[in-house]
């Protein structure tokens, strides 16, 4: 009994110091002088642009990574294609690799003298310091989540339901749509939530490739940093609150997803 209480007290204290205190502080600082300064800070044109840009990048990266994640998981689990073991290991690379390194790699590839950058610039495609590179960086860092959620579920459900559908006359596509996808839907939803959260919060890789030009290539995380460096503390805190609010919304969605998962 005492041991259980001790564990609970310790974990709550740990969470309070590590998580709750900083987040509360951000909210408190943002609303310290009331709603008006907060509203003024986030309705500033650069802040609005940064928010819109972050949402745009997320809206492109998440569907792409979801589609890739499902296909990749199917390839890893269902089809014994030679080399899939290597792919399986490679998928985790973004978790291990520092985003700064990713950003640097993209910089080298798509820069003026990079392998792809030279050719692309010659054809009038600007990747670096523009939306494409920011999307690429975000896709890279949020790549593993859907794959990692879907792979174990695919393994667990096995192939029998799919085989049963095939003997009943279902084509591969029908089997996927009617049998496989419904079976993995909560894992996919989970993966999407995690991918979204990661994409919204991405800073390191994007900050290297974007250039961080206010009102043009500045994401919300970069806006927070820029505001802070310019001694615009209210602006920094307000934008942080916005990010935190997005994160909390995502987490709430995850709770809904979890509940659905349990009831199925």
């Amino acid at each position, binding site marked *: 009994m005492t041991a259980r209480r001790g564990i609970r007290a310790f974990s709550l204290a740990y969470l309070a110091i590590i998580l709750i205190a900083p987040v509360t502080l951000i909210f408190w600082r943002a609303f310290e002088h009331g709603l008006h300064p907060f509203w003024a800070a986030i309705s500033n044109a650069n802040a609005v642009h940064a928010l819109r840009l972050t949402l745009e990048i997320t809206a492109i990266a998440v569907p792409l990574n979801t589609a890739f994640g499902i296909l990749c998981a199917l390839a890893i689990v269902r089809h014994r294609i030679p080399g899939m073991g290597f792919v399986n290991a490679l998928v985790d690379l973004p978790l291990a690799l520092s985003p700064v390194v990713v950003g640097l790699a993209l910089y080298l590839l798509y820069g003026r003298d990079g392998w792809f950058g030279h050719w692309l610039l010659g054809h009038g495609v600007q990747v670096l310091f523009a939306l494409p590179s920011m999307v690429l960086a975000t896709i890279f860092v949020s790549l593993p989540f859907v794959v990692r959620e879907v792979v174990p579920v695919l393994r667990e459900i096995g192939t*029998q339901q799919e*085989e*049963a559908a095939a*003997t009943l*006359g279902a084509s591969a596509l*029908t089997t996927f749509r009617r049998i496989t996808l419904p079976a993995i839907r909560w894992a996919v939803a989970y993966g999407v939530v995690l991918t979204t959260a990661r994409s919204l919060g991405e800073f390191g890789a994007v900050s290297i490739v974007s250039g961080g030009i206010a009102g043009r290539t500045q994401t919300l995380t970069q806006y927070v940093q820029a505001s802070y460096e310019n001694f615009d503390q209210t602006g920094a805190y307000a934008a942080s609150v916005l990010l935190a609010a997005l994160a909390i919304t995502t987490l709430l969605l995850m709770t809904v997803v979890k509940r659905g998962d349990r009831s199925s």
Partner: protein
Amino acid sequence: MAIEARNVTKRFGDFLALDDVSISVESGSLTGLLGPSGSGKSTLLRVIAGLETPDAGEVFISGKEATAVSPQKRGVGFVFQHYAPFTHMTVWDNIAFGLTIRRRPKDEIDTRVNELLELVQLKGLGKRYPSQLSGGQRQRMALARALAAEPELLLLDEPFGALDARVRQELREWLLRLHDEMHVTTIFVTHDQEEALEVADTVVVMNAGRVEQVAPPRELYDEPANAFVMSFVGPVNRLGETWVRPHDIEISHEPNGVTQEAQVERIVRLGFEVRVDLVRDDGERVHVQLTRNEAEVLELAPSDIVYVRTRRERTFSESDGSTRPAPASAS
């Protein structure tokens, strides 16, 4: 001829699951594939269904070459050992699946599914999910689902393997009645010799990827082709080079010219059947099956000295095929 497999070979890595297997199955028959685990019986069933591609050999369904035809175009109904229910669909949707993907009219689907629910005794349970059914009910749902699109061929992989003894017995009888009514050509896989003898009209005995014998149940029991079949299909004593069924041994209290002396070691009474374990004077252990009446007349007790003779015995030569006995667990 409904189904024919010709010289089918299938390997999984180093394991030879099917070794040049040929069988043919009569249209409308109820055939049992019997064998110990790893004998290749399930693999053969999956090759017939198109779920496995053989490394060599051909499969014919209703006279047409079907080796390369995908499972969805073979017109077979397949029932999996663990039922493979579509867990996110209701019982009704599970059974309707084969019809909805063929875009049959709604009234037709309704009529057919209701018919099948009645046939498999699941009327009123259509709105449940598979997780809310018992094992036996799930199995019947899987059968109804397989039958919905009126397959030419029904394939059942260890259909009753995961059920308890009583439900298994009920379902066997039910499958027999169903087959009598529907006459759909049916092949089922089992490792249970009693199930094969009771349900099938033809039994294919398999061992180590080969077919040992194809025969009606009675012939299989009375005229086994080799030592493997003899020992796999029913209990058996191996006495030197000869094989004797436990009920083909006679016990008496008096010796005569052909009897051998033996000592009673153990007596087990199983209702109508009484099993007596003996040790002959040459050291051979002998299992004997008596009816209760026979046992009562003999009034046997452990350590009694009795005299035994065999009524009927068999010997097999190398040319009969497999002379290796079946694994002990099977008898």
